[in-house]
């Protein structure tokens, strides 16, 4: 090894070191950019969520005190149900239990508090859950929430398909004796924000699926037999009205 060779290899070591240092710096910059990309993604998500949460909510006149359900009847026992108009099990529950519930309301035994949540917007291609819930609230303003609910379940769209459009929802209403103000209410999307509130309140109440039924705050099976049993139990336990 002569001197020149030593010098050359020393220079190469230095050059390599500089290059490695440059590379390390570049890697650090790339990492910073990557963190930035993830952070931007998070901030976008958060801001969209925040903007969806805020905003004014119209509440139908027939709503309960919390403004997140439609009340029918004046009985002392509170039967609460959470349903989504596109959920097949909700239709099964509705078809099976509706007559029993109507009878209990007529007998003055219960107050039915119904939360038409829009949990399953993803099951239709046109946010049917939200629009059906909003239309049902419009029907409630006409005093025909129960009639319209029956009609919605009788015409339930298949999951994964396009649900009825707003115009079709209006037709369904007018076919069932709803007025022009109902049509206007649906067209104005008056209660679309309300459907969102019903859903987020239901989620806060720990309702993670539909149908979910409570009798005086106690969760029960979604069937007429379970409702009757719970109502009987509640009426013997506390005969005095609480609401």
């Amino acid at each position: 090894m002569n001197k020149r060779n030593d010098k050359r290899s020393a220079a190469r070591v230095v050059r390599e070191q500089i290059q490695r240092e440059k590379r390390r710096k570049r890697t650090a910059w790339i990492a910073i950019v990557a963190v930035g990309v993830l952070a931007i993604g998070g901030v976008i998500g958060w801001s969209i969520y925040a903007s969806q949460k805020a905003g004014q909510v119209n509440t139908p006149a027939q709503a309960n005190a919390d403004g997140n359900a439609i009340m029918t009847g004046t009985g002392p026992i509170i039967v609460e149900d959470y349903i989504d108009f596109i959920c097949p099990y909700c239709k099964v529950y509705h078809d099976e239990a509706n007559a029993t519930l109507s009878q209990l309301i007529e007998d003055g035994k219960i107050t039915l508090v119904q939360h038409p949540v829009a949990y399953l917007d993803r099951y239709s291609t046109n946010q049917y859950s939200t629009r059906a819930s909003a239309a049902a609230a419009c029907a409630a303003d006409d005093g025909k929430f129960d009639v319209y609910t029956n009609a919605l379940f009788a015409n339930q769209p298949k999951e994964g398909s396009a649900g009825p459009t707003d115009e079709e929802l209006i037709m369904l209403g007018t076919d069932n004796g709803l007025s022009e103000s109902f049509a206007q209410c649906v067209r104005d999307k008056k209660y679309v924000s309300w459907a969102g509130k019903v859903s987020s309140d239901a989620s806060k109440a720990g309702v993670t699926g539909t149908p979910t039924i409570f009798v005086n705050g106690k969760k029960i099976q979604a069937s007429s037999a379970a409702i009757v049993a719970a109502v009987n139990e509640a009426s013997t336990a506390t005969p005095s009205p609480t609401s």
Partner: protein
Amino acid sequence: MQWVSLLVRLGLAAVFLTAGALKVTDLPASGRAVVAYELMPNDLAMTVGAIQPFFEIALGLLLLLGLATRFAAWVSAATMVVFISGIVSAWARGLNIDCGCFSKGGHLPPGQTPSYLPEILRDVGFLAMAIFLIIFPASRFSLDGWLNPVVQDEGEQTHEQAE
């Protein structure tokens, strides 16, 4: 190995992009999927659920482009560990939920049993892919390779040039 890394990288990118895209159209539902795990207070869970799809898409894009691959692989691995522990804990507590990994989420209707084991195995598979990328981050067609080519590291490049 760079070709294998490319396949793993693109595979993992597809996983995150799909998972994110399926949830991003319905943020409240994504939030409710997190709520169903009953691990966080409601407001926090809803917020996490809203952010998660965007986070997944951003992570998927990093992997797709091959930008900061090793870093993205670490984040992917950490994310998978969180998902797997979430499912395991839901299973251990006997919750009857959909994992909400790819869309849906929330409580299952009565009569339907959750499929926790396949979900966990699938996520372990994704975790393995992420770990592979941590070990072999260099891949073909990556932004990393273009922005920051390997120079004389352990003489690797000299070998390649020689061959």
